[in-house]
């Protein structure tokens, strides 16, 4: 949980209007706008996205989670290589992990062949990459905090004691 209520509201719903954000945080509209601009400038806010149920949207894209083992470098550890991998357009997320491997790389492609090609030609050929293990995603149940199956609407009575 982030400490600024503004960020906690926006992380849940980035489409809340400036006016509503101002009401919710007891700030003025101008203050809210300035705070958001500040967060965008210093990189606290990385971006705004729409969370889509890809199955409903008819997407045939393929996603894979790739476990990557790396050779750490003197001075920089895994950072230089990780940044280099993260820069590929195919990479959606890239995290340094504890445990049996070093990087978890979430990759998206138009089909199985594209993802496989990325792994075999780009990722595993990098100097310092020791091994990769590719796991393809079969079905999504929850994305970025949103469940794919929504619960029933409000069951409360309109007036209760």
């Amino acid at each position: 949980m982030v400490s600024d209520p503004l960020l906690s509201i926006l992380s849940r719903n980035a489409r809340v209007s400036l006016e509503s954000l101002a009401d919710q945080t007891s700030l003025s509209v101008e203050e809210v706008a300035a705070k958001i601009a500040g967060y965008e400038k210093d990189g606290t806010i990385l971006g705004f996205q729409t969370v889509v149920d890809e199955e409903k949207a008819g997407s045939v894209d393929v996603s894979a989670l790739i476990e990557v083992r790396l050779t750490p470098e003197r001075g920089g550890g895994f950072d230089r290589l990780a940044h280099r991998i993260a820069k590929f357009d195919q990479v959606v997320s890239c995290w340094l992990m504890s445990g049996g491997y070093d990087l978890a790389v979430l990759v998206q492609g138009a089909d199985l062949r594209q993802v496989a090609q990325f792994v075999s030609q780009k990722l595993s050929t990098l100097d310092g990459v020791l091994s990769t293990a590719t796991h393809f995603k079969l079905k999504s149940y929850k994305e970025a905090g949103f469940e794919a199956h929504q619960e029933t609407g409000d069951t409360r009575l309109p007036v209760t004691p």
Partner: protein
Amino acid sequence: MSQNELSPSVVAEHIQNIPRSGIRDFFELVQGREGVISLGVGEPDFRTPWHIREAAIYSLEKGQTSYTSNLGMPSLRKSIRKYVKSFFDVDYNDANEILVTVGVSEAIDIALRALINPGDEVIYHEPCYVSYHPSIAMVHGVPVPVKTYFEDGFSLRAEEIEKALTPKTKVLMLNFPTNPTGAVLDEGEMRKIAKLCIERNLVVITDEIYSELRYDGVRHRSIAAEPGMKGRTVLLHGFSKAFAMTGFRLGYACAPTFLIEAMMKVHQYGALCAPITSQAAAVEALENGAPAVEEMRLAYDRRRKFMVKSLNGMGLPTADPGGGFYVFPDIRATGLTSKEFATQLLEAENVAAVPGTAFGLAGEGFLRCCYATSFDELREAIVRIERFLNSLGVGKG
């Protein structure tokens, strides 16, 4: 009419004498209307946190479908003891000072039934929760309401209780934070009230259902924690509000053993025990629910500040509620009664808020607005209420 047909006069007189609930009257006006924004719902808009629901499901999966001890599952009573000790700073023995009930509603009923002889007087503060007056009347007690005032933020003055005392006064009922005002009890007054109860040998029934929902960094304090009060207080609490578990119907009473014994007599014949599935969920709520409660509390707090500022800004004086999820704006400047205001607001702008008089005569001139609804709805409700005020010619817009 044939000789053997029953007439309504067969209903017990003291039940006939209980008036229809103002909430029910208003519900019937609202029911079936399209596009209503309701500020009339007295329950959280959040779902029960998933880990608590999951504990209920797990309990069913394991086949826990039996009765429990009349007092409630021992594991739940242990959890209640730990929670109450840390939250209220009062220690109750989980073997004989804690009773698990079907919501605080049942707990109020059995506490009164265990205590009241016909004609005993029960003092409570108005505006108050809808069940207090009828619950007292149903046990043949005499309801004695004392007023709380807008100027005090609807806190209770000890002197008001003192004025209402008679030799027949037996019980004082408290509910802070209060439904419908969101009021909290001033701590100085709490000490005076405690002193008075000890001097006059009164029993206190304190309904603490909103106690987690306190704002402005103030730690909640119950009268049960005042020196000398534990032995004469029935502390009632439950899961509906803070944990968003209204439908689970689960509450509990903490009191001296002889009172729990007496309440247990009523409870074991009237309800036997609280539902086991709800009890399993309640253990999870008490052990691991704090982060979810805090997240909901912060959301309510944002809405509270917005409602107080907006209502005051449009010319409806509104006390800053220190707790709960209600605001209780003063609509007297409009010249309308609470009922007229609520009905006209519903008809003109499709906003439902309950007339203050549903919570006792002291609620005349006020409106209960519950802010346990989404921020977007609250913002729209405020726009509509302001437009309605302007149409009456009393708004500031």
